[in-house]
């Protein structure tokens, strides 16, 4: 994911315009990054609704802290990725607490009308992957991804789904490159193990 000087210059001018109150510039930023952020969120959470909410939260956070972004310190995409990742980790911690305290019959969001965890498991409404030919495989991989620890999950998502290089991942996660490589290795290995086990069970 090499960012050319021209691209970074364009981004810089876009941010400058946005900070000057140009709504169109902000819209352009949203349009160019929403797909990527949504995909990271979806792969991390495995839920479309959560991904949508989190993507909105990420952009609100970007909007509020755009002033603090320093072009010299790194690429805008990396900055956005860090913000997304921080929010995902927060969300993971919160949902983990919920999972500990909630039973299967209680709704995870605490709302009466929201589907319960039990409903969500039973619910077989098509995910975005359903349109792809190998939809069963996609679902299996997504489920396996959900079983990885968040550190390994975010590392493999950024490497293999978002195609970021080690340096950018290290910058986004704020860990050394060696750690990034190690996490990617462990994440891939664990995923391969889970899926080969599942496939053996299926076949």
């Amino acid at each position, binding site marked *: 994911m090499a960012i050319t000087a021209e691209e970074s210059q364009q981004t810089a001018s876009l941010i400058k315009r946005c900070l000057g109150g140009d*709504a169109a510039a*902000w819209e352009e930023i949203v349009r160019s990054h929403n797909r990527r952020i949504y995909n990271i969120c979806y792969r991390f959470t495995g839920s479309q609704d959560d991904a949508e909410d989190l993507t909105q939260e990420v952009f609100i956070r970007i909007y509020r802290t755009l002033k603090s972004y320093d072009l010299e310190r790194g690429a805008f995409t990396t900055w956005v990725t860090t913000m997304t990742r921080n929010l995902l980790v927060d969300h993971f911690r919160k949902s983990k607490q919920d999972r500990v305290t909630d039973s299967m019959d209680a709704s995870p969001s605490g709302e009466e009308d929201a589907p319960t965890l039990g409903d969500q498991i039973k619910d077989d409404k098509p995910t975005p992957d359903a349109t792809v030919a190998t939809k069963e495989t996609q679902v299996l991989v997504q489920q396996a991804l959900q079983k990885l620890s968040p550190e390994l999950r975010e590392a493999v998502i950024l490497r*293999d789904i978002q195609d970021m290089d080690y340096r950018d991942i290290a910058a986004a996660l704020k860990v050394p490159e060696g750690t990034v*490589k190690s996490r990617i290795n462990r994440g891939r290995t664990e*995923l*391969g193990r889970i899926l*080969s086990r599942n496939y053996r069970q299926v076949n």
Partner: protein
Amino acid sequence: MTEPTKNGMKCADFDSRLADALDGLDGVMSGAELEAFRAHAESCSDCGPLFTQAESGKDWLRSLAVVEPPANLVHNILARTSMIDPAMAPALATRQASDSWLARARDFASPVLTPVLGFMAQPRLAMTAAMAFFSVALVMNLAGVHVSDLKNVDLRPSAITTNASLRYNQTTARVVKYYENIRFVYELESRMKELKKDSGKPSDQDQNQNNDRKQQHDRDNTTRNPETNHNENYSFEKGQDVIAVLKLERSASLDGRQI
């Protein structure tokens, strides 16, 4: 604790090179290094499966398709951020409003319109299009429809609705009026008939009654004198009698006193 070394490569080294071997990001491994790596993967019972699993894991992850975000995501984000900074809201709102309507219509129609327009742009279809236009124009001309009559105003949805409801109401009113008129005419006719009937009957009855009365009168009148006899004034004589009687009584009483 010494690291086990197999084929000139430690398991820890193997682990650190695993990502490089699979991704090939930090430069392609040198021939000797790659050779040692492969040899280690084949011979080491721990690292061999590790390599296979990592490779399959990577392949699984790469098979995941890009997920399309919901269509209204950008709109929702812009709506929420515009609430944070009201200064940016109006520009954003107007842009969004003008943008969304047209853009959505264009997005919606483009899968249909684009191939159709591309197809129609072919020269061999130009004559067909011209003939179609000509025939439509001819039919419209014959039907008495002139293009100049069709104002844009008339094609607005609100104008169409107003026109339609106006036409409906006018037609309804006409039908009701027609019906009412028919009813009125019928009512009038029947009333006239009744009146005619009525006007015939009473005249007969009156005549009959008159005849009856005449006959009765004739029967009573044995004198055969004309009726004018009734008008004869006898009051004077009769009155005189009464007064005379009174006078008599008076004179008698007077006489009695006098006697």
